[in-house]
Every structure is written in C-alpha cells, then in structure tokens.
C-alpha cells in the first residue's frame, strides 16, 4: 500500500526534521540518587557549598511543598507525575579549567556546535579562558550563561561586564560571591510557598542566572541564558534572579532545548525580576523545549513561575515570550506594579501543534497610581493542539488613573485544535481604564492559495501568514533573536497543513 507507506514516511520526516535540537550528548555525568526527600535537598545544597541560611530556606520550601497539591485548574491534561522517579541533580563531571579548545570535552563542544551557537561564542561557552574578551571592533556580542542540566557550565563576558559594575553569573556563583544580594532579594517576588511548582523549585533549584545592574547603568550588551536539558529522567529546576537598580536598563534573553525522548521530563523554573526607580528590565524568552512527537509521546512539561516587581517609580518590566516547544506549557509571567507610574508589558506568541497543550498568559497587579499595563497575546493552534490564554488584570483601590490594554488573538489551523481565552478583570478603582479585545480567526484558503500562486509552498505560506499574525509580538524581540524566532515558528508548524 504505497499511499500508506508514503504517509508514514511523511509523518516521520516531519517528526525528524521538525525538531533539530533533539540529539543527546554522551558525556560523563554525576547524578544525585533518584527521588526527592530532605536528604536530596541537603545533597544539592552541600554540592553547591551553600551557606546555612540557604539550606534552611530550601528546607522550608520543601516542607511547604509536601503540604501542597499540584494545581489542576489549568486547561491541560497529563497523567500523574511521579516525583520520586526523577533525578534532581545531574551535572557534567567537571575537569579542571581547560586552557584551549583542544582540552575542552569534545562532546560538550560538539553540543554547542550542533545547537547552532556561533563559533566564537562556542569557544567562549566551552569555558576557554581568554576568549571572553570584547572583540576589537563591531558591536558588542551577546553575553551567555550556559546551563547544562543542573549546572551552569560557563558564563561569558563577565570581565567586560564587571567594568560597568554589572554582575552576570550563575546563581550558584552569586550565592558564593554576592550572598548579601541573593539573600536580600531571593524569594521576595516569588515566595517559597507561592505555588506547588515554585515551592518544588525553591527546594531543589540547582542553577540559573543571576544579574545585578547597578544604579544608572545601561547594560552594555544583551544578556542571555541558554538552558539545555540533556540527561535522561532528569528534571531541570533553574532559578533566575535579575535586579535592576535605580535608573538602570537591561535586556535579557533565554533560550532552551532538549533531546527527543519518549518520556516526559519536568522543567519547573522560577524567575524573579526586581526593578527599582526608573529602571527597565526587558525579558525575552524563546522557548523551544522538545514538544513530543506527532502522536503526543514525550516532550517537556514546562511548569514555570515568572514574576517581576516594579518596586520603583516609573520602573518598567517587559516580558516577551515565543513559546513553540514543550508538551505542556503552564506559565504566567506577571508584573506587580507597585511604583507609581510603573509599566508592565506582556507580549506572547504561543504555538501548539500535534498534541501540545499551552495554558499561558499573565497577571498584572496594579497597585501604584497611574500604573500602566499592555498585554498582547497571540495563540496559534494546529493539529490537535490546545491553546489557552489565561490572564488577570487586578486594579487596586489606590491605583488611581491606572490603565490596561489587553489584546488576545487566536489563529486556528485545521479543525481538530482548540483556542480558549480566559481573561479575568478585577477593578477596585473608579478612575482606572481597562480595555480588552479578542479575536479568533482561521488561516483562510484564499490566503494560502494567493501565496502559493506566487510560488510559496504551502508551509512557507503558513509560516508567512503566522509571522504576520505575530508581528506585533516579534517586533518586541531583540533583533538578533527575531529572525531566529520567525524560523522557529515555521518549523513548529511543519506538517500542520495539507
């Protein structure tokens, strides 16, 4: 039956070509014993040589987690997770600081090459000392913190950034070198007991990035963290903390990928942002965890808590996310708008293809007077994908003159997928203005035909139309990543039509 064979081959081709980052690196790893208990929490803390206060902090989180129940209110379905059947610590065995490219573990090197990280950056990522200096000409490159399973393997351009007083390092390093800053801010935006997954993260977080921008400093380059899950049966629990002191500015981007596996792997991160008076934090995410195969087998469970506090007057926090990966995305990057005239923004593109599920959105808490928020959400559903926007705009009694504008657009490709919009608005202030707009549309046959008549393949046409649909969000991404994100959208939708 040639037709059937052809169909199967096509599906395989899509599954294979669709996720280019699905390879596994064979590298010597060190694991904590499987499972989760107080000893594991102590193991992780000891492994990282943490001070006593942090171990206690973790243990309080673990105690809280044990009393909590996994949230079930999101519009996502998955079988129960066995939290004892996972490794909570997995790190490449560290060899003493390699001096040249030849000495770096070639497997690690090849991994970065395959992930498409440019050669110079690659040299830096692999930890070759001396390669991290600023190139003599041209614009400054992007500084990268590379997190491989449970640990940060390298952070680039630290020396260059230090010249401006910017601290950019792994959070483990920050605990050692800047304990006063970590202690002052950790858990102040997302408390340990905030929710089930945040509590879990607080107990077992292993690494992540730490950023501090001093007063009045505009960070001289984009900062980014590249998260890679590699080891089998391992959860990744990273913790990121970014503090922008008064009058400072920083743009930060995170990217992530994982091997293709039949098992589901858990990724439960916590990100905390703090912006003081007149400070701006722009936080962009291109989320490309393994989404599972065409039948919905495997993929990452992405259960993430991200929240920013605009503590200072006229401060601004802007979240931009492009969510193309993960079997399940559960994520609501939020802003607490305390400072007067502070601004919160949320720009989101979420794609669900095959059997992916996304329940994502934001919360904007307007506390200070004249606080402003903008929400632009673009949900794209294809295959059997289910896509939910869930958002809350809460305006407190003292937020006189607060304003919110929300726009939620959904695009459907095919007739087996779903789009849902669940906006909550709570307004306790008579002088506040809240606007909400929502649309749902399909890619029209005439649009596809028009593009194909002009020589584009069906998939190029879908990519073009989807990119057009997402334009308002994509233009918020730093230039370097906008192009990448556009390509990603197209790849994510491969095989979704025709």
């Amino acid at each position, binding site marked *: 039956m040639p037709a059937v064979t052809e169909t199967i081959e096509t599906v395989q081709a899509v599954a294979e070509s669709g996720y280019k980052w699905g390879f596994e690196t064979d590298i010597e790893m060190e694991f904590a014993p499987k499972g989760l208990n107080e000893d594991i929490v102590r193991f992780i803390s000891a492994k990282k040589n943490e001070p006593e206060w942090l171990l206690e902090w973790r243990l309080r989180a673990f105690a809280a987690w044990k009393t909590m129940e996994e949230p079930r209110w999101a519009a996502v379905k998955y079988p129960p997770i066995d939290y004892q059947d996972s490794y909570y610590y997995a790190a490449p065995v560290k060899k003493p600081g390699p001096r040249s490219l030849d000495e770096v573990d070639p497997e690690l090197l090849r991994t970065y090459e395959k992930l498409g990280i440019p050669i110079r950056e690659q040299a830096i990522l692999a930890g070759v000392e001396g390669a991290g200096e600023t190139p003599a000409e041209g614009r400054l490159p992007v500084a990268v913190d590379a997190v491989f399973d449970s640990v940060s393997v390298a952070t680039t351009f630290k020396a260059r950034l230090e010249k401006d007083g910017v601290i950019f390092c792994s959070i483990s390093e920050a605990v050692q070198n800047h304990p006063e800053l970590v202690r002052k801010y950790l858990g102040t935006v997302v408390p340990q007991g905030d929710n089930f997954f945040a509590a879990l993260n607080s107990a077992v977080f292993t690494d992540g990035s730490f950023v501090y921008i001093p007063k009045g400093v505009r960070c001289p380059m984009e900062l980014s963290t590249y998260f890679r899950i590699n080891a089998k049966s391992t959860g990744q629990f990273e913790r990121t903390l970014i503090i922008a002191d008064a009058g400072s500015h920083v743009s930060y981007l995170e990217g992530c990928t994982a091997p293709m596996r039949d098992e589901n792997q858990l990724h439960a991160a916590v990100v905390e942002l703090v912006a003081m008076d007149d400070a701006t934090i722009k936080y962009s995410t291109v989320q490309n965890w393994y989404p599972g195969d065409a039948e919905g087998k495997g993929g990452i469970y992405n259960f993430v808590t991200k929240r920013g506090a605009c503590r200072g007057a006229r401060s601004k926090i802007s979240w931009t996310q492009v969510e193309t990966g993960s079997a399940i995305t559960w994520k609501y990057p939020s802003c607490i708008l305390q400072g007067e005239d502070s601004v919160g923004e949320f720009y989101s593109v979420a794609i669900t293809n095959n059997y992916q599920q996304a329940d994502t959105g934001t919360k904007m808490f307007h506390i200070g007077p004249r606080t402003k928020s903008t929400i632009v959400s673009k949900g794209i559903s294809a295959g059997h994908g289910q896509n939910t926007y869930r958002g809350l705009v809460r305006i407190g009694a003292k937020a006189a003159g607060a304003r919110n504008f929300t726009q939620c657009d959904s695009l459907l490709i095919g007739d087996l997928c779903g789009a849902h919009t669940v906006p909550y608005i709570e307004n306790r202030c008579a002088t506040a203005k809240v606007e909400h707009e929502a649309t749902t549309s399909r890619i*029209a*046959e*005439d*649009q596809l*035909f*028009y*593009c*194909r*008549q*002009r*020589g*584009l*393949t*069906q998939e*190029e046409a879908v990519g*073009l*139309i989807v*990119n*057009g*649909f*997402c*334009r*308002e969000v994509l233009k918020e991404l730093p230039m370097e990543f906008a192009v990448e994100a556009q390509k990603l959208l197209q790849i994510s939708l491969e095989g979704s039509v025709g």
Partner: protein
Amino acid sequence: MLHIEGLTAEVDGKPILQGIDLQVPTGEVHAIMGPNGSGKSTLSYVLAGRDGYEVTGGIATLDGRDILAMEPEERAAAGVFLAFQYPVELPGVGNAMFLRTALNAVRRGRGESDLDAMQFLKLARERMKALSMPEDMLKRGVNVGFSGGEKKRNEILQMALLQPAFAILDETDSGLDIDALKIVADGVNAMRGPGFSALVITHYQRLLDYIVPDRVHVLMGGRIVKSGGPELAQELEAQGYGAVQAAA
C-alpha cells in the same frame, strides 16, 4: 505557448467548464470575454490550480509541460501568474517581504539565485516607479488598507517582478478609474514581447482599448463559442452577448 484541449472542470460537483479548446501562442495576448457565470474565473483558477476546482477531463500545457499535474507553487515557478480579481489581504505581512519571498521562490524554481534585500529594493523601486506606486506601499501589509486601484496595481507590480511566461489577468480592470486603468494597461504592455503571453479576462471592451489583444474569445456556458480579432470585442460591446448566443 499555452495549449488547452477539451478541458472540463467542476466546482462542488457542478460542471462549469464544458470542454475548452484554446491556444495562446508565445508572444500573444488573448482576451476572454463573457457574461457572468460563463466560467471565466473558473478557467483562471483551474489553470492556477486552486483547491476545489476539480479537473474532470482534457489537458492544459505550457510550453509542452503538463501544468494540471503540478502544485500551484510549481505552476508559479513554471511561469504561470494569476492577477487576482480580488487580491487577498495578508495582515501583518509586509508587502516588501512578501514580494521578495515570492520573487525568490520563483527564482529558485527557475534555478536562479536569490536576490538579497538591497538588490530586491532596487528592482522593486524601479518597477514601482513605472506603475506610479508610492514607495510606502512596500512597507504596508500585503493589500491591507489598499484601495481597489492600489490592489490591482500591486498585482501588476508582482507580475512585473516575477516576469512570468504566461499571465492571466482576471478582471483586472474592475473597480479602476481611467487613470489607473491606463497605468495597469501600460504595465501589461511593457511585458509584451516574444517571451510573454497573457490571457486577459474582462467584461468590457474598455480595457481592450489600452491592451489591444491579438485574439478575442467569447466564453459562454463553459465553452468558447466564438473567436476573432480585436474587432470582435467592439462587436460584443455594440450588440451584447445575446447576439453571439443566438448565433452559436
């Protein structure tokens, strides 16, 4: 050379084309006229390969190649261009980006290299000037917020950029004022030459004053019922389709 023989097609199970025989030699421009519902737009969609327009019999070849066996984008690469009666809006997709993507797709199909952004802009500006199109039309979304005349000019611009071997202009004159009509006609006439042929579909003789066809065909009830020189268009204008129908 476009060669159509015994072409029959249906839409939603309803036969529309009832056996079309038509030849457009390379270098010639032919007009197809006919009343509403005669199958003019169906013919253009069938040749361009739109879904839902089911070919039930006959052949259509362009320079000896069976275009009916090709996907729409393969036909485009083979040199088939359709100027739409109702150009489609693509919100958020920049016109420049769309035009360049289309041009490069067709160039790749022809085994030519891609144009980079600078080369493309230079070419596009040149062609736009010839069509009296303001440059900001490159920055706007494809056909979004374009007036009727702007949409049609945008179609002609695409034709001028893609340089097809065979173009179908489906009622490109509808909704155009006389100035826009002249600009569009100039655009088509500029394409005329030994490597180009076209099928101009229209209700009215007016367009054919500016694009003078080599042959005129009358399509009625899914068949070509009469063919002649450019004077046939004037005859139809004077006497209406009824006279042809009575004679056929």
